[in-house]
């Protein structure tokens, strides 16, 4: 399992090292099937496999889990729930993160510039 993960990360590094020359669509395509963490306006987070995105920025996550805090006041325990496939409209999305290696993150930051 661990070996598999390592292999995957190396392939990603390989692909992203030349990544800066790729257009954004191709880069997003590389993020498919990765673990994605999406935060929405009402404070909930959804963790799931990145499945699809459309022009409007609506995201589909597969095998998603919802995390919500039990209380309104900020430091509070969370509650989680499995939801399966979900659609997160772009309008309510406030943050979006993808699970990747440190090297990869660096290349992503380069990308932004």
């Amino acid at each position, binding site marked *: 399992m661990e070996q598999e993960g390592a292999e995957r990360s190396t392939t990603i590094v390989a692909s992203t090292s030349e990544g800066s020359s790729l257009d954004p669509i191709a880069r*997003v395509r590389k993020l498919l099937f990765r673990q994605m963490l999406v935060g929405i306006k009402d404070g909930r987070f959804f963790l799931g496999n990145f499945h699809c995105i459309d022009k409007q920025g609506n995201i589909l996550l597969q095998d998603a889990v919802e995390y919500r805090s039990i209380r309104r006041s900020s430091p509070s325990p969370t509650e989680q729930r499995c939801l399966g496939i979900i659609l997160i409209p772009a309008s309510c999305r406030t943050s979006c993160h993808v699970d990747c290696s440190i090297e990869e993150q660096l290349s992503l930051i380069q990308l932004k510039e």
Partner: protein
Amino acid sequence: MQSVTEEESSSIDHEPRTSGDNSVWAHVSPLLSAACSDLQEGELIHGDNFNLFAAMSALEIMDPKMDSGMVSTFYSIDEAIESGFAPVPISSDRTVDVQSIIDIMDHLLACEATWQMGHSLAQTVFSCIYVLRPERTSSHALLHSFCRVVRATCRALVSVVSDARTNEEEDLFTMTYGLPFSGDEDAKGLLLLNAVEETICRQLRACKATSSKRRMLEELEPLQTNPQLEESLCKALLCRIRFRKHLLHALNCMRRPQGRGLELARKHIAYCIAELDSVLNSVEFLSSETFENGKNEMEESTTGSGRNPIGFEPTLNKRLSAPTPPRAIKLLSWKKAIDYYVKLLHNLDQICAFKLEPDLDAVLQFVVQFQKSRPDLVARAHLQLLLVQDGKLYGRDTFLTICARSLALDVTKNHGLHLNEHILQLNQLMINLLKILCANTPWQRRKLGKILNDWSIFNVQMGITVGHMMQQVTKPRTPKNGDKSLLILNHIYGWVEEQIHWVALRFLVLGFDLELYSPSEYCMVYWYMYIILWKLAEKAHMRVLIIVHTEERKAKKREDYSRDLAREDRISLWVLLLKCQTSLAQGLTVMIAALRNEGMCLKSQGPFNTESEKFIQHFGLLQKASLPKYDAYESFSESTCHAFYLPVYECFRDAQKMAKEIKVGYANDPDKLAEVVGLEQVAEHNIIAVNLLCQDRSLKVSFEFIHHPHFATAVVRRS
């Protein structure tokens, strides 16, 4: 914006599912928006496994109809409690506290009735924070014990319904996933409630007592602070508490094995009904402050006082049941909830009053009679659990014994029979039949149609075995050792055929109750009923002959043998009733057919399906079970295409004559008597109608169920 998302990403690192050591959460929003702006209209970024159909079923976040996780009033129960939504005590003013508790009690009653009418517990009873978290109220004996008893009652009902499995269609009833149900603690609620009741009783006595006596009772604190309201508030609380107490007792008694607690349960039910009456009467006092302008508001309210209760939030549990939020429901009003309980209690009383005779005819007739009032799930589940316990009738007699009894046979000596494969199968068929008869009418009809096939296959198999055995036995070498197994099997074989026809008749008759037949189809329905009734009457008559024969022989053998003449009379009467119905069905078939042949009554011709197709749609299940054995549609169209009026008189007159005879026999049974009187009136009115129609062919005729729910009366009108 950037800083906010960065902060969030740092907080995410505490999430339980962060990835391995070397990986981090990379912020990708800018990349996504860049990609989106590059995308063409309608283009998607997706992998190979993308499937539009599956994607369409995705749950849309922040859609109020799909996303149950959306934050509504409160994030959680704890937050609701912390925000003071359900305080304990409800108010520091004890008068207000007591009044609020009465409102909670009333609203809970409405919630329970709504639940029992087919909604989920989570949205009804458990929308009450005091019920969800009873441990919070332990300092407040009244509220605490009441909520505990409510929970115990819910538990008892869930257990009855899930044991009976009558909830196939009402599957929300038993859904308790995620709800706190702690049996032991709740069971103690009743003890506590008793103590509370006693205290309030004393407080009531104290406030009524004259001043001289009051001194003796002085150490007793009054219920609340306003002496003018004391008596009425005490009374309002007492009737509500007592209702709860007796209801739970009644339900517990009804669950005792073999119907041993029914008598006691009946007493509790009587108390319940009386207390419910007092609850209803307390509304005058309770609503005196709130309703000044009209009664309209009262009809809709879920409490007697008309105030909104404290501590209820139906959205609290909405994430428990499914990923999508449950539909919003409308609670029954308090008045309707009381009506529901009155009906339920009367139905339960009916069950408790049943004499538990080990007689199948009596059982079947009771169940049919019971279903006439359209009882709700809870009552039907109780009846079913009473009838079938441990695979035996009332948990006492095997169905072999019961069958044999209905043939006046004794099976106690023939031990081997219990293990006979046919008898085992029959046992299962009977259990299924009784369970189905306790289901709601639409479901019942569907299932009856389906089990007819099982019964007829069973009948054929049994016929083969019994026939085979009979052939062997006719050879003279069979020893006479008193083993009557074969004789009994042979009789049971005949009885099974009678039973099949009974089921078929019930199937047809339920069609009227469910309004499945259109007036243009009455002709074929009555024709089919006639065929089935005729055969059923014949089989039942055979059984009477068998019974009389065996009883006579027994009486001859032993002089002290007392024949059960009452039962013989009862079955004979039943046969006569069947014959009366046969004549009526025949009369109606011929009459409608004649009207159709003369063009006075519409033939069943619609633009969509032909008469033979309708015939199959209605009776396909009966024909599959070979009832009758010949081609029914052919026979039906042949027998009705040349019909004319003359034989109608005879049929109706026969029916009338028989009804008169039966009436004498049923003089002591008001339910039966009413039915027979109905049949008699149908016959009488139809004779008159036929007379009029013969004289004047221009009359208009329609068929209505004025006198009997299943046998139509012809109504004749000019123009």
